[in-house]
């Protein structure tokens, strides 16, 4: 449970990879408040993956710091669940054991963790697939297992690394709606990175636009399309709303403006 006012804060963080002259991230600050769904959008090389890896604790910043509810993040931990682009499931475990894996690591008993895993599988519409082998599932289903695995460990924040990037357009839309439903039901804050503009505008409560060389945040927007869908408005109705279309075009224009500026700067 995250108390009101508790936050995940990225405070003036920079990252310089060893052996690289370019700065991967330059002076990035970001707050992920409870109940928010923060989306980082940008082209490849803008540092969004670096930012997610920092928050997950997979890498450490060159300068600046990251805190979760006041405590500095020093490495990976169960309070920050991660959903990976290529599911990263364990093929020797079946669906339910994959979902219960985090609980198993915490030493939760078999009966209890399976009950919890069953419950989460129901949440992601995978009821009845408990005993399936994960390598027999489709890409979309595997991604749902990955989401269920992260949720089962009951993290305080859900980090999603281009989770729908490898899926086809139909499945991707389904997954976006599923994510919004779970986000609303569980009340978990989410930090998601993507390069899909429509996805970013649809999902985000807070959208941060990033740009490369050096990787930095160039624009922040507060949006409510995701909330509208979570409150019951159909996805198609939200996405065909002129306001949505205008915002999507606005973001698109920004992305191109920054890209051209970067190219001009480099030339």
């Amino acid at each position, binding site marked *: 449970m995250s108390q009101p006012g508790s936050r995940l804060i990225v405070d003036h963080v920079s990252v310089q990879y060893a052996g690289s002259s370019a700065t991967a991230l330059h002076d990035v600050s970001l707050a992920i408040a409870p109940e928010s769904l923060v989306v980082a959008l940008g082209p490849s090389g803008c540092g969004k993956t670096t930012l997610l890896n920092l928050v*997950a604790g*997979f890498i450490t910043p060159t300068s600046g710091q990251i805190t979760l509810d006041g405590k500095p993040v020093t490495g*990976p931990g169960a309070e920050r669940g*991660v959903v*990976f682009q*290529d599911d990263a499931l364990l*093929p020797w475990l079946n669906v339910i054991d994959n979902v219960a894996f985090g609980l*198993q690591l915490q030493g939760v008993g078999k009966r209890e963790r399976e009950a919890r895993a069953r419950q989460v599988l129901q949440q992601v519409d995978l009821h009845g697939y408990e005993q399936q082998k994960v390598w027999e599932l489709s890409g979309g289903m595997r991604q749902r297992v990955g989401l269920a*695995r992260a949720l089962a460990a009951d993290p305080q924040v859900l980090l999603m690394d281009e989770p729908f990037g490898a899926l086809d357009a139909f499945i991707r839309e389904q997954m976006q709606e599923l994510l919004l439903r779970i986000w609303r039901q569980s009340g978990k804050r989410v930090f998601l990175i993507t390069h899909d503009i429509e996805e970013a505008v649809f999902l985000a409560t807070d959208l941060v636009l990033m740009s490369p060389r050096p990787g930095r945040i160039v624009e922040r927007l507060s949006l409510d399309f995701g909330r509208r869908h979570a409150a019951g408005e159909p996805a198609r109705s939200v996405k065909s709303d002129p306001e949505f279309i205008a915002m999507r075009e606005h973001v698109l224009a920004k992305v191109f403006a920054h890209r051209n500026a970067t190219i001009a700067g480099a030339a």
Partner: protein
Amino acid sequence: MNSAELTLDEHEFPAAEHDAPAPRAARKGTLSISVLTLAAVLFIWWAVTTSGLIAPLFLPPPQAVLAKLWLTSTKGYMDATLWQHLGASALRIVLALAAAVLFAVPVGIAIGLSRRARGVLDPLIEFYRPIPPLAYLPLIVIWFGIGELSKVLLIYLAIFAPIAIATATGVRGVDNARVRAALSLGASRWQLIRHVILPSALPDILTGVRIGLGTGWSTLVAAELIAAQRGLGFMVQSAAQFLVTDIVVLGIIVIAVIAFALELGLRTLQRKLVPWQGHTH
């Protein structure tokens, strides 16, 4: 030589399973060609020996070898039946294999995970690995005598290196995303090794066991030169000294059949334990 063989097998197997009907028929075709080849060899063997073209001292006819199979299984040769010789050899290789797996897998994991362990262990393994077992056999006899220990130790050393090297390769090849996933679920270092690294490296470990068993089995004959009382290698060796060629041929065939059976068994085990191979990217 081992790595080339390894990659070939790895790719041949899952592929043959995946593509549906055509390769299955092709496989059946290959099998019938193999059976025909064996039958042809057997026929030529029978023809040249029975016609008297080759003296039985150099190559006994197949029916004589078959008769010896019956004789050695019932009455025995050199105070032991064929099955007792076989049992003695099998026990040595099982002991050596068990010890090798017990020690080589942790060593391989250490090499794969830690730069320091790699620095210490890698040169040691690479130093002794290419030496033919017969070359260091005298040293082992000087150190450990002519008892059972020396024989098992020699086979153990032959099996150890391939398993350790294959394990290290498997550990280094573990998908980084899986490791990160486990870490972000709160895995400790030991949990990571137990639940992610070891199962991820299992296909490579099994390949190492396959290669190790191959070299181990061929070292067996060398090991049983050390004053053995029983064993297939011993049987062949002592029969050769008395020019009992049919026992020599029989021993060679039994050794070959066992090696082939071990290989097939391990391939089946590999498919059973690692059914996802070829399914995941």
